[in-house]
């Protein structure tokens, strides 16, 4: 209990003292995970939406692989990205190993299956429920996936939160490809691991509390944005302006002439 209370007070004092090293670590964590999520989401949203509406031979196998990738251990991802980026690896020429970019790449690889799988499920459910109606309006498969993606945008915010949560909380991949270099590739999770190994448990726990706080803050922010947007969408103006030409056309049409 003492450890927890001293951790809480350490966390509080770390925040209130605005320690520049800590601020750097927090900002770096946020930047790495945000970049990784942006990359993973830009492709994962489209890929997931397409998988949600498409039907092709071998789709079941693709989905099985995708769902398996949800359980990818982050150290394995770190190892694979390490091998790709190492000097003798196929991407070694980039010189990204032990850099910010390497951490972004590793987290993006880790998060991509999460985004793709969750989006796929959401869009597939929506397509089963009412995709036929858009098909009836003339939307082909890919267009249907885009329409459904847009229509499910609020539900998909939860996917973004899940993806960001997965990215910011992982330690294995960034540790392997980033190297936990002080002031350069050290992020919150690798700091926690380091402080724990040094035996400074209160500081490690304080960083953990801080990490949770950051994620909580982001969740609240997204929830607020979501509520604000929903309220904006649901706002019901009493009367929308109707051009006089339209009203004139209506009265000219009368009850007859339904078929143009």
């Amino acid at each position, binding site marked *: 209990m003492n450890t927890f209370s001293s951790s809480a007070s350490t966390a509080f004092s770390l925040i209130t003292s605005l320690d520049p090293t800590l601020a750097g670590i927090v900002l770096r964590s946020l930047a790495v995970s945000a970049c990784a999520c942006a990359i993973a989401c830009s492709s994962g949203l489209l890929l997931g939406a397409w998988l949600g509406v498409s039907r092709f031979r071998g789709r079941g196998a693709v989905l099985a692989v995708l769902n398996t990738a949800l359980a990818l251990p982050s150290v394995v991802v770190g190892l694979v990205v390490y091998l790709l980026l190492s000097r003798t690896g196929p991407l070694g020429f980039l010189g990204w190993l032990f850099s910010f970019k390497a951490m972004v790449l590793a987290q993006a690889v880790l998060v991509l299956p999460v985004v793709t799988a969750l989006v796929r499920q959401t869009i597939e459910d929506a397509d089963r*429920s*009412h995709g*036929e*109606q*858009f*098909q*009836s*309006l*003339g*939307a082909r498969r890919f*267009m249907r996936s885009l*329409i459904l993606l*847009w*229509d499910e*945008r*609020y539900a998909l915010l939860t996917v973004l939160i899940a993806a960001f949560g997965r990215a910011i909380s992982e330690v294995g991949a960034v540790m392997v490809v980033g190297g936990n270099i002080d002031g350069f590739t050290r992020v919150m999770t690798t700091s926690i691991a380091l402080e724990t190994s040094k035996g400074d448990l209160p500081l490690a726990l304080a960083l953990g509390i801080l990490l949770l706080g950051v994620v909580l803050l982001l969740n609240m922010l997204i929830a607020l944005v979501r509520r604000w947007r929903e309220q904006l*969408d*649901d*706002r*019901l*103006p009493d*009367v*929308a*302006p*109707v*051009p006089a030409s*339209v*009203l004139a*056309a*209506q009265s000219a*049409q009368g*009850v*007859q*002439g*339904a*078929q*143009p």
Partner: protein
Amino acid sequence: MKPLFNLHAVGVQFGKFRALTACTLRVEAGERLALVGSNGSGKSTLLRTLHGLVRPQSGGFWHDAQARQAMLFQRPYMLRASVLNNVALGLWLNGLPWKQARDQALQALGRVGLADLAGRNAKALSGGQQQRVALARAWALRPQVLLLDEPTASLDPTAKREVERLMAEFADGGMTLIFSSHNLGQVKRLASRVIYLEHGRLVADLPTPDFFNGPLPAAAEHFLKGELA
């Protein structure tokens, strides 16, 4: 005269379930065709087949590719967007530039008496209003054939009357109507021809007066008595 649809012994199967069996049917332009039958009789499948949403596994299916079609579903889906944009979407998907699509959508909304709700969130409308928005969305496409799957089911009597009135007006304007319904009063009022389906089979195909007054196959007779009782 060239028919709009010509089906010969069409069969549709979903897995092991036979939704339609040996359906033979010819639909001419300007007809008001009602599909009746109990739940699971194949009405919706027949409508979806005619609309091209379901591909028959057997038999011959021919339709006039020049004749534009639109379909109205029992529970029309509204996008999380304004009423106007919901209607404009169909037009845009059919190749109209977005601005022009919105202009025409407004006209279509005027046609169903909902122009004043153009700026509202479509999801927030009542069931009857949503059905009228869906009618506007279908009408905006200038279809020659309008297929309607139980368009007034789950609507209150006022909304039902309003949708029926619009259907009658569209048909009076020359549009071919093909609709499924459990409401025999509605069938009597709107249809010129009635098809009775049972277990995916087309059991009776008669002009409306003959369907309600004339001798019917036993199954259809039984259904009619049950529905009218």
